[in-house]
């Protein structure tokens, strides 16, 4: 199972659950699985069929580069964090 840390803005949809365990082989499947558990999550995370531009996905402490297509290993930990930078 993939461990997903639920970011603050989604917790209204997850009844304040902070961690969800779902299965999936890539980010798209993980989000679909989350949607099954917590309806509305998918619409919050996606825009025009893509991960919203202000969200970065962190998989096992590395920023995912492939968006929804990023492969996810079986016991991975997945995190949604702000896409941010510096000067």
């Amino acid at each position: 199972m993939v461990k997903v840390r639920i970011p603050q803005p989604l917790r209204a949809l997850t009844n304040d659950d902070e961690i969800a365990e779902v299965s999936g082989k890539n980010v798209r499947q993980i989000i679909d699985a989350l949607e099954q558990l917590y309806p509305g999550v998918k619409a919050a995370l996606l825009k025009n069929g893509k991960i919203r531009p202000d969200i970065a996905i962190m998989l096992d402490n590395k920023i995912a580069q492939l968006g929804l297509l990023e492969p996810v290993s079986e016991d991975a930990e997945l995190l949604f964090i702000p896409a941010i930078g510096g000067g």
Partner: protein
Amino acid sequence: MSTKEKKADDLRVVGTRPIRPDGADKVTGRARFGDDIHLSNMLHGKVLRSPHAHARIISIDTSKAEALPGVVAVVTGADFPVIEHEMVSQGEAGLADMRDIADNCMAQDKVLYDGHALAAVAAENPHVADEAVQLIEVEYELLTPLMDVRSSMAEDAPKVHEHSFPGFFIAPTEAHLPNASRVHMSSGDLEAGFAEADHIVEREFTSETYHQGYIESHITTVDWDSNGNLTVWTSTQGQFEIRDNLADVLAIPIGRIKVIPMEVGGAFGGKDRIYLDPVAALLSKKSARPVKMAMRRDEVIRATGPSPGTYIKAKMGIKADGTLVAADLHLAYEAGAYAGGPIFLGVVSSAARYNIPNFQINGFDVIVNKPKTRPYRAPGAPQGLFAMEQIVDELAACVNMDPVDFRIKNLTREGDILLPGFPLAPIDTDLTLNTLKSHPHYTAPLEGPNRGRGMSYAMWFNLGAISSARLAVNPDGTVHLSTASSDMSGTRMTLAMQAAEALGIEVSEISADVSDSQSIGFSMPTVGSRTTYSTGIVVMEAATEVLKQMSERAAMLWEVDVDQISVADGVFSNKSNAEQSISFKELGSKGRDTGGPITVHQTSSPESFIPGVTAHLVDVEVDPETGKVDILRYTAVQDVGKAVHPDYVEGQIQGAAVQGIGLALNEEYFYDKEGHLKNASLLDYRMPTSLDLPMIDAVIVESPNPAHPYGVRGCGEHSIIPPASAIANAIHDAVGIRPDSLPMAPHKICAAIKRKQAASD
């Protein structure tokens, strides 16, 4: 092919101090910056800017300007295509609404700050253009300006924008805060945390808007040719950002735009976005001639940058043993005239460096009638730390702990979970603080009245993100390195050094340049302390591929399998015949005979969120009669993983620390009540001069970053963060007051000393 894994102490090139390739041109005046372009038949453009902070544009009449002899073209907002409101990722520089970006280049319906562009003229020379601009007549309906975050967040504040700026982490607030969006992060149980605290300190802080202050203005030259192709010569941190912004704002295909990066005369985060470029493009299109536009200094200050002013309320609690147990931060940061300031970075940098089990941060991105904020070296961090590191100092004193020991007790270490939810990547955070504590400055006597010492500790993350590099082995066996990473401080050299290290050749064998947007693959701009680290990794990936292809050539020459070829220190050897070995240069010069020249182009995206930490120590002397603060001694310790070129690393630390000293003591935007900026010059915007500073002792420590082959961490931004809080702590040590407002200008210090005297009388 087999290569030997390099250990840090094996490095031949990395860690040395060769002279940079662009240096000779820079000391002889030959280096070509944005303003050094002179094209045949070129016109000069100038911009009309709003004198009002907030007004509706009723009408613009350009007829008199057009009639002035020498004027060739005039544009206004009406000449811009109408594009949709769409939130886009501005790369790692944050999010933006593309329509807002266009509107910032040229106002459409409303002007939103003193200095907002609303028309432009191209003429035969800059003086005529300047005169013509003054002939443009504009009728305004004045609106109420909102000049600070608290006014903008007031319940009765007028709404600046009709459109909202929906984000995922940052959400529009309730209806009564029409100009603010909110980001919220928390962990633990705040109430319980404060309940178990033995000491609690709560304070409020404010800070004013300040600017990046690069000495080179914003300058661009655009040629819209008769085929509809645009060539742009500009001074920028990212030629691809300029290209992509231009394509969006002008609604033209990316393929028609070529951006040629000139030498960059300083940027610090402020040159990753279009301002003049689309205006010059439209003037060029209208006039069918190339157009150069350069901002005057007052335009740079009025209409570009800056870093946000803030209002911060912070409450922190510790147990009697000095353990931090709870923190509650309210951070309200100016976004400027459009949404999307550095609030996330303020939140993340405030939260990262200490373990605080019960933590809440509410961050607000607040629209005000000031120029749209842009990233400035560790955006959002100095302001947050000005608050927190002073409270930390106060809490340490509550329990009589040494300030360094207090921080060591609470600091985050590798693997600790940070507030956004991810663990801290490998770094030896103790090393930096212990180094500061054992530095002679820490225990040096500090005698004399009104003198004090203070310290501060900061953590910042550097970006990875996409870079491209191309290595070409020349017919004589020398190597050319191209990247797309703008070089503002010597990165052509630090990248060439990494290439030389990886290839096993001397750095003098490598030439390096920064290519235009059509000559190399996409790269993120030079931001976020990423170039030496991230582009460096990509360069080394390319170098590995070069060695692989050269090994194949060696195998071909010696008629053996490639697995018989070993490479070490620039020499290819045949494992099966000890007699056969060949140097990189010799093999390279046989390129034509072994299958043609070798060129490797590499694009990839190294990891982000590489932490770096820095601890600063400062001695000050306060003149209690005038409130003036003088810096007597300054030491900055920074963990840079591995210093590729130690001189440049010291330069980054020193330069950042001095910018931090500037924003700490004197730099600020001064607006009158109507929102007119009153100090838009380098006379009254007071950046530090050489006479305001001592030598800055930059101490490099190196705890290797495992994500980089040589252990490199980004180092460019970090040291701007601690100075304000370190100086505030030193002022407290000197005269017993707690500065609560940036900059710590003499009149504020004076007033605080008076208040303290009055209270003790």
